[in-house]
């Protein structure tokens, strides 16, 4: 669990560096080696690691729009994910998806940039598992800003009435871009949303990875045993802006400092030390994580960019005869 968290944190820090290259001094979103928006999840690691620790490759995860920490914990290929973020041909999606839209069917991971819209497909994966009498489960990750969305609430209901093996994990970082949680919902505990759907709802405070691990264990167990869905809300902290380049003028400095100060990784390390883990083991985990991240970034940067002609491929799995020409605007 710690290794996944440390890997994710280091990964985000390195991506931030790479992203800002070429965008300085004046920030231009389309410049540099990584263009487009980049949403980093530093401070969210406890939820991805604590939950995915219980998952197998055949379990499905739909990620949030800041998906890297969940992807890493689910076992998504780090090199190919990185190549995707750099827009390379050997990326997970051949450079067509980018960082918000990572698809790795080998470990049943996918993500969407549309808020809460990963929930219905997770319900669908759970439905498929139930119909086939399998014991795989599905997990949908979303932010607390997404719990007002119809797609989420409708998914809770569908999952509940059909007792589907799905877990909804809400990452509560207090902010939806510039909107603090208090201004968009009247419930402090998002897990209360579960009450209206007759499913268990559980909230874990203080970025506590161990507590997430325990709560998720129960939820995943319930789902695997055919006892239906669970809603889990996990307190996390947004250590950075909503996206890179966000000046966060709307956010009080004290809040940013609080987020920097409350850290799930520090907490977990302290817990491990308290239960007897020695410094050497923790250090080893850290250096292994760093090496893995550096390898992935180095590898990704060496990969070729896609051939422009690739743009016309993959619109369909089964393209009608001669369709590529039509797409291009030819005959």
């Amino acid at each position, binding site marked *: 669990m710690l290794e996944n968290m440390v890997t994710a944190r280091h990964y985000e820090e390195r991506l931030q560096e790479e992203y800002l290259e070429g965008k300085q001094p004046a920030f231009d979103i389309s410049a540099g080696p990584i*263009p487009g928006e980049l949403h980093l999840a530093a401070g969210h690691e406890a939820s991805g690691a604590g939950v995915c620790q219980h998952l197998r490759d055949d379990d499905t995860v739909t990620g949030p729009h800041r998906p890297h920490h969940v992807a890493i914990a689910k076992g998504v290929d780090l090199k190919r994910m990185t190549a995707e973020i750099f827009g390379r041909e050997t990326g997970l999606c051949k450079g*067509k*998806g980018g960082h*918000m839209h990572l698809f790795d069917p080998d470990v049943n991971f996918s993500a969407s940039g549309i808020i809460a819209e990963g929930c219905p497909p997770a319900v669908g994966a759970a439905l498929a598992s139930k119909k086939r009498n399998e014991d795989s489960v599905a997990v949908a990750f979303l932010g607390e800003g997404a719990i*007002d969305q119809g797609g989420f609430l409708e998914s809770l209901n569908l999952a509940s009435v059909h007792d589907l093996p799905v877990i909804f994990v809400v990452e509560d970082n207090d902010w939806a871009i510039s909107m603090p949680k208090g201004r968009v*919902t009247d419930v402090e505990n998002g897990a209360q949303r579960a009450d209206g759907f007759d499913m268990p709802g559980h909230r874990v405070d203080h970025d506590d990875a161990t507590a997430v691990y325990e709560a998720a264990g129960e939820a995943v167990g319930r789902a695997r045993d055919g006892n239906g869905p669970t809603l889990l809300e996990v307190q996390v902290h947004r250590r950075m802006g909503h996206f890179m380049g966000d000046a966060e003028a709307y956010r009080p400095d004290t809040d940013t400092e609080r987020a920097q100060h409350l850290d799930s990784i520090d907490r977990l390390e302290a817990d491990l030390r308290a239960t007897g883990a020695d410094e050497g083991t923790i250090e080893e985990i850290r250096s292994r994580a760093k090496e893995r991240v550096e390898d992935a970034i180095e590898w990704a940067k060496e990969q070729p960019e*896609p051939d422009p002609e690739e*743009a016309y491929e993959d619109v369909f799995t089964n393209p009608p005869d001669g369709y590529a020409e039509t797409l291009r*605007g030819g005959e």
Partner: protein
Amino acid sequence: MAASDGKELTMSRAMVDAIAHEMRESDDVFVMGEDIADYGGIFDSTQGLLDEFDRDRIMDVPISETAFLGAAVGAAQSGMRPIAELMFVDFFGVAMDQIYNQMAKNTYMSGGSVSVPMVLMTAVGGTYNDAAQHSQTLYGTFAHLPGMKVVVPSTAYDAKGLMHAAIRDDDPVVFMFHKRLMGIGWMPAPEGPKTAVPDEDYTVEFGEADVKREGDDVTVVTLGLHVHRAIEAAEDLADEVDVEVVDLRSLVPLDTETIVESVSKTGRLVVVDEDYRSFGVSGEIIARAAENGLSDLTAVERVTMPDTPIPYARPLEQEVNPGTDDIIEAVRSVNDE
């Protein structure tokens, strides 16, 4: 009102000026959307409004598009004049019923007894590698569904005039602005959208296309960002071909007359559209030109997004997004015919 009066403004500033003016004139005008208050709109479309108006009139809302876009419909039907923003046009899917069944149709289905005087404002367009869920233009989708007026400014002058007209209009107006034209620091705009804008209020009437550059040989009909790419192409070709650039400014209503007049002069038509190729703006313009001036037409081409989702990687997005070079090539090709 001349386009040359007044001080130079970015397109976003011009839009905000119009909104602020209308809000001062009437308490019925208010704005709601995600990140429009403290943030001022991700693309600066409401920048600074919270300094002058309170949170009841510059309302941040939860991420719940069905609810808040539908609430705008309800408030409009109750006689208010809401301006609702959804930051990217790509996100409309989650609330499409409120848009195309409620907002757009209630006037008709009520036999005209109900009106929906609201503005639905949203950002369109790619060019910065944000992939298929954040880069679409979708002009055609909104213009295709009856009951909504659809406007697309390409300059600060037009943006202000269209915004005044949109807020005053008794019908629902979809106001689609291209991110790349807004003049935001982190997304540099081309030369052109920043124009002189009069201080006082004025309207740009819907259904009046604007000839942004006159020419005798080839007509290029376009809108939004691609007006500027077309003008650039025309300047590059100036020694070779005399290109007329028609900026549609509104899709519903569509100014068929200006298109036909231009085509009957040049005989050659190129339509440039950042939206998907099939079943959209480009096909519509060509159909209108053919219906009304077939005998004048000697050559037609369209330069559009192909019918593919918009890819992320730079070489792929550049391949599909119609560039100045593509326009030059198309103009040359119709000119040679």
